[in-house]
């Protein structure tokens, strides 16, 4: 399945070209101001990267790589220096481009790709409290629905007050079916029922919401494991995707979050939310490298169509940008 049609694709490409320009200008300013790679220049670069939550370790790594390349390649002009910097930063993401769905030009992955032989394709959504799991599910469901898929949502956040109601509204907006039980019921049972129901109606995609939980609460992480085990019992191989949702404003704690969730349920992809603010989400650089898992989506607003496929290039560009994060194209 190709989710993005040709038109969307070209729009995204245009958007990327635009952000590339911004990157060039911003680094250009840096280069012109410093005129050579001296301590001042590197300090400024460090401030940009750390200020974007890239983290001390990752930042040192990137900077020493740049230093090395500058030394080896003896850049001739600013253009070359810019190229070196940009490529070193986006290189950190190369690990993260998903193999199963990279598109022809190798630049843009299709994060909504679904294998033909898996039906229903089950996606489990996990993350700490308040990162935007439910909103992301609404957007995902909408996108799949728009692509002609039959989608069922499972409301397995049975803990938080009014979580059911919130998801119900999103399901309604997306025009998809939702399976839910009363608040306080067993989340694993909800997940089980959802998959059963999806199977019997021949649905294409199942999205299971889970309650937000801090990764340090071992009992809640056990619960998450159980939900996953039960899903596999309901349909062997499920869930096919475990998506970790990370708030773009998250600092270095994001690494712990990712580690703990990964060791509990095996994360297969990341979604970064709230990138429409001034937060840069640099922490996903470290996460995606550490766990070798791809960043699949970015959330850039509260509207149902504000979910975009991740692009390492646009993301890198945005690190150097003032406000707007991902270029948004109006049709």
């Amino acid at each position: 399945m190709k989710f993005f049609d040709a038109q969307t694709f070209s729009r995204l490409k245009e958007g990327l070209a635009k952000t590339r320009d911004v990157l060039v200008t911003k680094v250009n300013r840096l280069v012109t101001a410093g005129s050579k790679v001296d301590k001042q220049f590197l300090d400024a670069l460090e401030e940009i990267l750390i200020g974007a939550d890239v983290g001390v370790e990752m930042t040192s790594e990137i900077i020493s790589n740049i230093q090395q390349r500058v030394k080896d390649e003896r850049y001739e002009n600013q253009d070359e220096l810019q190229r070196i910097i940009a490529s070193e930063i986006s290189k950190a993401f190369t690990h993260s481009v998903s193999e199963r769905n990279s598109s022809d030009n190798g630049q843009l992955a299709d994060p909504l790709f679904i294998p033909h032989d898996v039906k229903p394709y089950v996606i489990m959504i996990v993350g700490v409290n308040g990162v935007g799991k439910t909103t992301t599910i609404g957007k995902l469901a909408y996108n799949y629905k728009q692509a002609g898929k039959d989608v069922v949502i499972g409301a397995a956040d049975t803990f938080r007050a009014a979580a059911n109601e919130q998801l119900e509204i999103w399901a309604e907006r997306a025009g998809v079916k939702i399976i839910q039980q009363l608040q306080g019921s067993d989340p694993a049972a909800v997940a089980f029922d959802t998959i059963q129901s999806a199977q019997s109606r021949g649905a294409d995609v199942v999205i299971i919401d889970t309650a937000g939980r801090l990764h340090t609460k071992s009992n809640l992480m056990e619960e998450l494991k159980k939900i996953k085990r039960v899903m596999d019992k309901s349909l062997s191989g499920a869930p096919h995707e475990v998506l970790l949702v990370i708030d773009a404003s998250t600092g270095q704690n994001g690494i712990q979050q990712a580690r703990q969730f990964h060791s509990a349920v095996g994360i297969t992809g990341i979604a970064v939310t709230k990138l429409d603010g001034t937060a840069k989400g640099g922490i996903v650089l470290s996460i995606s490298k550490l766990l070798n898992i791809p960043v699949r989506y970015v959330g850039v607003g509260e509207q149902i169509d504000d979910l975009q496929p991740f692009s390492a290039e646009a993301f890198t560009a945005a690190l150097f940008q003032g406000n707007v994060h991902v270029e948004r194209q109006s049709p």
Partner: protein
Amino acid sequence: MFETLTQKLEAALKRLRGEGRISEANIAESLREVRRVLLDADVNYKVVKDFIDTVQQKSLGQEVISSLSPGQLIIKIIHDELVALMGSEKSDIALSSSPPSVILIAGLQGSGKTTFSAKLARLLKAKGRSPLLVAADVYRPAAIDQLEVLGKQIEVPVFVNRKDSALTIAENSIVHARLNARDTVIIDTAGRLHVDEEMMQEIEKVKKSVQPHEILFVVDAMTGQDAVNTAKAFHDRLNFDGVVLTKLDGDARGGAALSIRSVVQKPIKFIGTGEKMDALEPFYPDRMASRILGMGDIVTLVEKAQETFDKEKAQKLEQKIRKAQFTLEDFYDQLQEIKKMGSLSQMISMIPGASRLGNLNDVDEKELKYVEAIIQSMTIEERQHPAIVNGSRRKRIATGSGTSVQEVNKLLKQFFEMQKMMKNIGKGKNFNRMLTQRFH
């Protein structure tokens, strides 16, 4: 809470502790590590820079060089600087003398405003006030329902109007509070991005119209470098009075607390430490700084204990400890008291030096249930004289409690060790060691 920062600072300072004298070189090295620790803890880049400069200047001054224990002095300087950064004393929220007092809650999406609003209402109610919660988040699906559910839980009325704008709801709620003799109005607003001009204007209008006595900015403790930008933007628009730091029950290092404080110069007034309605604590800057430096937060622990511990029982227990007559039955009673105080890991995090014991979040509350079950399966005689528990008794207890003989053995062994330590305390030895070893 703040544990990782504490651990790392301790590691960075260990070298200094061993040094006889401070040289410019070894300070520089330690400060580089402190810098890294603070950056890893999400303290803002510029704030860290200023902080390190200040500490360096003060450390190289006369006082340090003349001192006999330079390591301690550096820790003191860092500690004092941290306290200064976070505000030197705790501050309460402002309540008006003529009711109703109006409290406006603002912040980004997902920071925990709704949960905090309900927790605050519960706290004020417990202090004898009659709060009214106001559901002014008209955007997020089911936000109003969420507040209604929480209001029911804590038995505080919630002002709801599903048709009007946030501004009208806020205005009407004040009238409603007057008519219904509610003396404190807590307005829960929608999460908004500081760059969303329309939404920022909305909350400005609400502020102008209801004239809150207190505006609180709610921020997630896991926030990174951007905390400074958002706090500053909200502060420019609302001139808020205080900050609420949420989700501190995780392992986030909470550097945002330092950054925000130093950028907007407004105190942190509360911290959220769990999803339960009573997981709200006042913020004590000096205690927090002590905690960061691994000195623990013994004052909070003692206060908590005082709140819940039955005084008489505590006195009896103390006597028993002194006379080394501590039995499994006392241990069981004590467990029940501890359970009243809050989560175990939360309590442990307040114990001095506990950060050095490794990841405390691993303390499994479930294990306590096993311990309880084992003790419950003992006869009174066995509880009072654990020494009589022989092999066949162990087997019976294991079966009775649904555990294994190994687990019974483990508990008994730990108990005997504890008894030994209690004896030491009775003789006035190393209280700290007892506290930190008890759970391991």
